């Protein structure tokens, strides 16, 4: 029986052998690069550029030279997804330059948080750094898992290289304290993809203008977005207006709703943490009704439990004229191998609300150093972050597909022209806003997920009832956690 069990393995080996019959892309690229480099020798302009790069590399080496030599490998924990692969490539560059190996350990999203927090509860030293969710800040800081990076970020002048909004949400805790615990690494937030082939079709434009009295273009306000979603919802043609987040699991529907909530000028709580009268304010009610209207009228079928993957699937299948998603998942939409509409897919920033407020729900992560590792390892980790934060490396990071938060890079021609969604991303990075990041965020999240799910997806009750329930229950939790002064 054991022999028989080996068959599949043999089969895989066989397939691998067949697959390897021929040159690998890596080999060819290496050969080609040699040729190209020879050509470059003639091209003075490129030579100059190369020199500049070398200078940058030397500088980088200087940074590295100041680092302790005992540590020759570093481990970073992150979730299992493409950006972590890109970070691994950055890590490989670091190894080439400094000899310090960097391993990015990737854990599936579903267990990423569980693994990290259980490891931290045991004061584990398996990882030197973690690229952790912004929401973890409170929990991790109050429990002492993260090293205080305030001095490192401020005196090392790292804090001023990233956009202020990302510094606040990825690094600062408590909010407003100017104490920093992470380096904003993967900037991310919600934006929108749209079908330019539909939006730029003269017939559609004429029909839209006739019906709504203003020209059809990527929406600038939520009101316009809803109009357009209605306009493009044509079940008979298999087309719906907008694909949005509805998943009950973890935080998806809350993230999606925040895009309207914040842009309608509302928030989860007052500055002194009281949710009553804030999350159930009139603006918030309007925001929720808008989100529900989008779900009712314009969400493609089968999207009652939808998050980034389902939204992209709906867009790729041609069912959605517009799609809300994290920028991290937009590269798939400009890849013609994945998305048949890739050539005509455009992107826009989360639109503004009736009061002119404009915010986008935050995703993404900051890189923190674990406090339980030895001082030498902490030092070596800081060295890596210091190196990683340099504009050259941040450019490299962006070129690989990572989402930099570096202001200079975000504003550079190179970055803005790199992909069709980068301009929208750069703008979004200035308007991001986040959910709670205090230790009890998980409990708050469960409440909002449940109430929002019941109202938006299941259609129970009214927006006011749902938000009143959230306000009441959040108040209880915050009070129990001593977050609200009596």
């Amino acid at each position: 029986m054991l022999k028989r069990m080996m068959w599949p393995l043999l089969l895989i080996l066989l397939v691998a052998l067949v697959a390897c019959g021929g040159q690998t892309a890596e080999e060819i690229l290496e050969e080609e690069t040699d040729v190209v480099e020879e050509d470059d020798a003639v091209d003075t302009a490129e030579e100059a550029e190369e020199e500049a790069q070398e200078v940058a590399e030397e500088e980088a080496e200087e940074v590295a030279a100041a680092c302790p030599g005992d540590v020759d490998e570093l481990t970073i924990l992150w979730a299992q997804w493409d950006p972590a692969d890109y970070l691994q490539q950055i890590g490989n560059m670091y190894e080439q330059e400094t000899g310090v190996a960097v391993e990015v350990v990737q854990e599936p999203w579903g267990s990423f948080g569980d693994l990290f927090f259980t490891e931290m509860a045991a004061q584990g030293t398996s990882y030197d750094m973690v690229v952790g969710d912004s929401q973890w800040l409170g929990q991790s800081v109050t429990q002492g898992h993260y090293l205080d990076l305030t001095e490192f970020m401020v005196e090392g002048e790292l804090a001023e290289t990233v956009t202020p909004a990302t510094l606040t949400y990825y690094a600062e805790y408590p909010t407003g304290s100017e104490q920093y615990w992470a380096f904003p690494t993967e900037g991310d937030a919600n934006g929108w993809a749209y079908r330019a082939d539909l939006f730029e079709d003269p017939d559609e434009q004429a029909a839209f203008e006739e019906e709504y009295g203003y020209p059809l273009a990527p929406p600038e306000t939520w009101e316009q977005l809803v109009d357009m979603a209605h306009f493009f919802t044509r079940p008979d043609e298999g087309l719906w207006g907008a694909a949005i987040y509805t998943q009950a699991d973890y935080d998806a529907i809350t993230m999606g709703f925040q895009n309207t909530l914040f842009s309608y000028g509302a928030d989860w709580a007052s500055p002194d943490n009281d949710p009553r009268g804030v999350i159930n304010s009139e603006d918030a009610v309007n925001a929720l009704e808008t989100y529900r209207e989008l779900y009712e009228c314009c969400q493609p079928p089968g999207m009652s439990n939808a998050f980034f993957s389902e939204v992209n699937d709906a867009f790729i299948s041609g069912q959605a004229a517009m799609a809300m998603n994290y920028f991290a998942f937009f590269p798939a939409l400009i890849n013609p191998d994945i998305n048949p509409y890739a050539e005509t897919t455009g992107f826009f920033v989360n639109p503004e609300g009736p009061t002119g407020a404009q915010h986008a729900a935050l995703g993404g992560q900051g890189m923190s150093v674990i406090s339980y590792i030895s001082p030498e390892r902490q030092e070596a980790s800081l060295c890596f972050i210091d190196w990683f934060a340099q504009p050259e490396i941040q450019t490299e990071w962006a070129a690989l597909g990572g989402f930099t938060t570096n202001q200079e890079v975000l504003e550079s021609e190179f970055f803005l022209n790199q992909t069709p969604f980068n301009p929208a991303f750069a703008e979004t990075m200035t308007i991001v806003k986040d959910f709670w990041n205090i230790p009890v965020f998980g409990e708050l999240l469960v409440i909002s997920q449940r109430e929002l799910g019941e109202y938006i997806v299941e259609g129970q009750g009214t927006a006011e009832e749902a938000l009143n329930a959230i306000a009441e229950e959040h108040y209880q939790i915050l009070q129990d956690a001593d977050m609200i002064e009596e």
Partner: protein
Amino acid sequence: MASFEETGPRHPVTESARVDQVHPRARFFHNLRALIVIALAIVGLIPVFAMGLTAFKSRAEVVSIPPSVVFDPTLEGVVFLLTERAQLSPANAERLREVEDQLALFDRIALSAGQQITGPSDFAERLINSIIIAGGSTIASVTLGLFAAYAFSRFDVPGEDDLLFFILSTRMLPAVVVAVPLFLMYRQLGLFDTHFGMILLYTVFNLSLTVWLLKGFIDEIPREYEEAAMVDGYSRLQAFYKIVLPQAVTGIAATTVFSFIFAWNEFAFALMLTSQEARTAPPTIATMLGRGGIEWSAIAAGTLAFLIPVIIITFALRRHLLRGVTFGAIRQ
């Protein structure tokens, strides 16, 4: 079931000997029954076929409307399953496209997705982990379970019902809650992320099933056989080995299949109690996130590849699984 011992001599009875089955009408029903079973098996397999189709679909094909049955198959899923890749810069992709015909098959497929293979994925490693852990724990739990079941069945064990219930109750506590204390314990004992720890855990997890199932099967075997053998000079162990084991083969086969399937597919503990070294394949397959979402073709390909060993084992054991216990066939 031992009460039928006295009712008469036990001869092996072949099907054709049965009066009600030689009748033409019975033959018709026999064929009809076969047809219904085959039809039901096909209906049950439709979702698996669908998965098979998905394994060879491109990302856009997976979400084509209506779902396609005939399409241009691609090996993307297999490539994504077995390799690690990096995104190619447009310039490099362009360069490679010019020399596409020199490329190996997998590299060409990766290139068509604008990617470059950087190395093998850890799927093969995880598959080997799965084989070690599921195989080891199945052997252990069936062996231990067989001994315990025999003892419970044949001996007068004080507090038997309570002990059996205790064994069963170990399965009743929801895994998500046991996982936290187990995690703490495994960390302390150094069993976290080890093959041995996982084999131990799955063995314990499956013991309740194996003990209960095998006891059910052994109960069916008349004890008179062993008693007769022991009168003939066999020891208890010999009687167990030579008389009970051959009779219990059906039960052992079924129990082996179930234990293996449970251990093979277990997800929650594997996710909680392993990380790099001993992680099995299910958490790897189920969480494959590709370019901008769930990589359906790779998950389907992985799931089906992962299914093959189970099917092979089941098929190899099918004769035992389906064999009737022919009483009286023992020639001693």
